[in-house]
């Protein structure tokens, strides 16, 4: 008999679906194994990166199932987001319509790949039944002071026309499109992740089965450093006396610096400077050389 896999694919996919082979329930009498691949943004088409990601997960899920584990292996869709809306702005389908269509198409692709998902647990974050609980959690966080509103200078991507979290600014550009990020003042909601900074650092020490590279990136991102805040008085009479010479072209000073010190008005420097600004002295920051330290780029 010749090997004709295309016929086998269809036959067994139908059989697994009709026998609900991968659907599971809580069963305290058996050891559990929760196998998860990062759910997908429904861009429209599964690519080889998806194929690789889900094939890796499926080997673990199927193997553990054969080893007697009660295996939870679900899949869903990270369905909200900019691309669908941007397409609509350019005259494309409504985000709801394009997203639902993309989900249907990609689901078909993953089913043809034969990944052993418990499809009955499928979810999409754009379902009101899902995002209702985002809202519920937001209110709980508001009640606990973990969600708060303040006016602040935020990262703004002029191309995506939206705010970016610090984590979404990569080398000064938008993580999605690379456009240089600007700043804007807006009333914004914030989650107080800093309240957990120490805990997130300590927890990282327990993650023995995470790649070191990821843990290092997280530690650097949290960037804890111990130091001291020390007041430095200004030397009386010091300050800018001479205007900069023509040989120091203004254009060479980056915009960030220009904003914080306008040297044409050097005689009207901010009161903080005249008072003798509190200058932080970093001392104990060298304890972990791999960690980005204190107050400086680069």
């Amino acid at each position, binding site marked *: 008999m010749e*090997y004709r*896999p*295309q016929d086998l694919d269809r036959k*067994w996919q139908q059989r*697994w679906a009709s026998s609900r*082979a991968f659907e599971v329930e809580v069963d305290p009498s058996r050891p*559990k194994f*929760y196998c998860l691949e990062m759910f997908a943004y429904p861009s429209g088409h599964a690519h080889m*990166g998806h194929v*690789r*990601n889900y094939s890796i997960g*499926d080997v673990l899920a199927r*193997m*553990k199932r*054969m080893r007697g584990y009660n295996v939870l292996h679900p899949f*869903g869709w990270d369905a909200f987001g900019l691309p669908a809306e*941007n397409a*609509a702005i350019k005259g494309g389908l409504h985000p709801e319509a394009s997203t639902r269509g993309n989900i249907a198409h990609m689901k078909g692709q993953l089913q043809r790949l*034969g990944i052993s998902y418990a499809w009955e647990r*499928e979810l999409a*974050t754009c379902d*009101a*039944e*899902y*995002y209702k*609980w*985002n*809202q*519920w959690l*937001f*209110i709980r966080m508001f009640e606990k002071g973990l969600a708060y509103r303040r006016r602040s200078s935020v990262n703004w991507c002029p191309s995506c*026309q939206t705010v970016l979290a610090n984590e979404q600014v990569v080398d000064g550009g938008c993580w999605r499109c690379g456009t240089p990020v600007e700043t804007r003042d807006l009333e914004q*909601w*914030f989650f*107080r*992740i*800093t309240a*957990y900074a120490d805990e997130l650092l300590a927890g990282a020490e327990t*993650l023995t*089965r*995470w*790649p070191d590279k990821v843990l290092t990136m997280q530690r650097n*991102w949290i960037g*804890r450093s111990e130091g001291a805040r020390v*007041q*430095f008085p200004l*030397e009386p009479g010091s*300050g*800018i006396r001479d205007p900069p010479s023509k040989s120091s072209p203004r254009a*060479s000073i980056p915009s960030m610096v220009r904003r914080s*010190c306008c040297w044409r008005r050097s005689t009207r420097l901010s009161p903080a400077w005249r008072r003798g600004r*509190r*200058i*932080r*002295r*970093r*001392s104990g920051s060298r304890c972990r050389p791999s960690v980005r330290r*204190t*107050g*400086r780029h680069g």
Partner: protein
Amino acid sequence: MSGEIEKQGFDTGFRAINPFTNQPVPVWIANFVLGEYGTGAVMAVPAHDQRDFEFARKFNLPIRVVITPDGKPLPADTLSEAAEAYGTLVDSGEYSGLPSAEAQKRMVASARARGLGEATVQYRLKDWGISRQRYWGTPIPMIYCDRDGIVPVPDDQLPVVLPNVAQFSGRGDSPLAQVPEFVNVRCPKCGGPARRETDTMDTFVDSSWYFYRFVDPRNDGHAFDPAAAKYWLPVDFYVGGVEHAILHLIYSRFFARVFRDLGMVDHDEPFAHLLTQGMVLKDGAVMSKSKGNVVDPDEMMQKYGADALRLYVLFVAPPEKEVEWTDAGLEGSFRFLARVWRVVDHWCETVGGEGVDAAGAFSALTAAERALRRKTHETIRRVTADIEERQQLNTAVSAMMELVNELYAFSDQTAIGAPGRRADEDVERVGVMERRETICVVREAIEALVRMLAPFAPHTAEEMWQQLDHATDLSAASWPAYDPEVARAEEIVVPVQVNGKVRSRLTVPAEVSEQELERLALADPAVQTYTTGKTVKKVVVARGRLVSLVVQ
């Protein structure tokens, strides 16, 4: 990270007084100091911080060495880079001679005593701004009332459903602000006119807890049942791209702690084991439409089947490494599956079902049968460990390929022969009987192979399992059991003669080399009793049978 930014600076002309030395320090504005970090001002230490060092060199600022490894002063012009290691303070007044850590403590204590400062902890991490002026996201469930201020939408009025918006302008303000029916609302507290928040949430909020919802996805009274979360969480194996290292993976760890503090989960860390898989490249670049180097999975599946595609992406490299796509590699995986298919097809009539009783069949095996059994169990051991312990799925596939090669080589020596003979030859072999032992050994090898292949190539494996006459599906079958006794290399006993008399016996692996036998014989204590102080004139090794020494 942003180390490539060219350092630029501007001298304000101000000088601050260092309160520990009472000496003036020039005050510069520099682009490598973070404005939002602490006060935005730092005390630079050019001798001991590389960024400060580069800045000082560029602008000709004084560099003072205040820490050295041995506490002996060091001129700054000997430095080619900042000396960042801890050491002993020098040139630091009353703090000279102290170790760095001790000096820090004392300086902070002194600053505090003099009312000049205090110890602080700083984080680079900032609070997470989640407001987005976009439509396609979760509406933020807040109401603004002139009388009551910020009022949450009551729980029984959730969800705040995203209203339909027909036109998308792309302007910077929130599309929801243009829907009066959405914006205008009664204040839940006073009943007066109020306005809804019109921003939506960052979509990273959505992805920070979906793994909890999966344990109980249809629950309409709670985000999820804590009992279900207690059973299923933490995630035992999480796979995704490394690009999520600091976004999704930090937010999820944050949300886990929020749910914990709400009493809904009992763990801190939601993902016990993380694997970040490498990218799939084509012609050295990430596949993208704009580069025109996209390989379409559907097309490949139509041509080779889902299993060949799956097997290829698993076999081509360890999961965490980048891979370069080649069509030839995919074809190779297809050919391997076809080769497995043929050997199973070839043997299934003979070994399938329960026709032959295996009881006691393994007690009287030929050397070749024993070797195949050994290979079967050795492969089970390797594949099991490769998947479960190391996730080196590529070497698991290699191990199975070796087993298939052995199966072919073994088959060739049997009455039935190897697959791939001409059809008429196969016809001649109809009715050929195999030894019961051979059938049992081949059945064990093939069934183990098919079961181990199931996670990689599930459709092909299921079909072969059915051909082997199993009534139940492979997806419900168990993983093959490894027998260490069988896998252990076979051992033989080799006598060692000294001047014609047997003086010792060596227990060695059957495959032992002549050189190894000679080495073992000479090192054997019983043999050494007869060789010590004498000269070994000659060593004769009859491999597998005898070692003979002539001494004088």
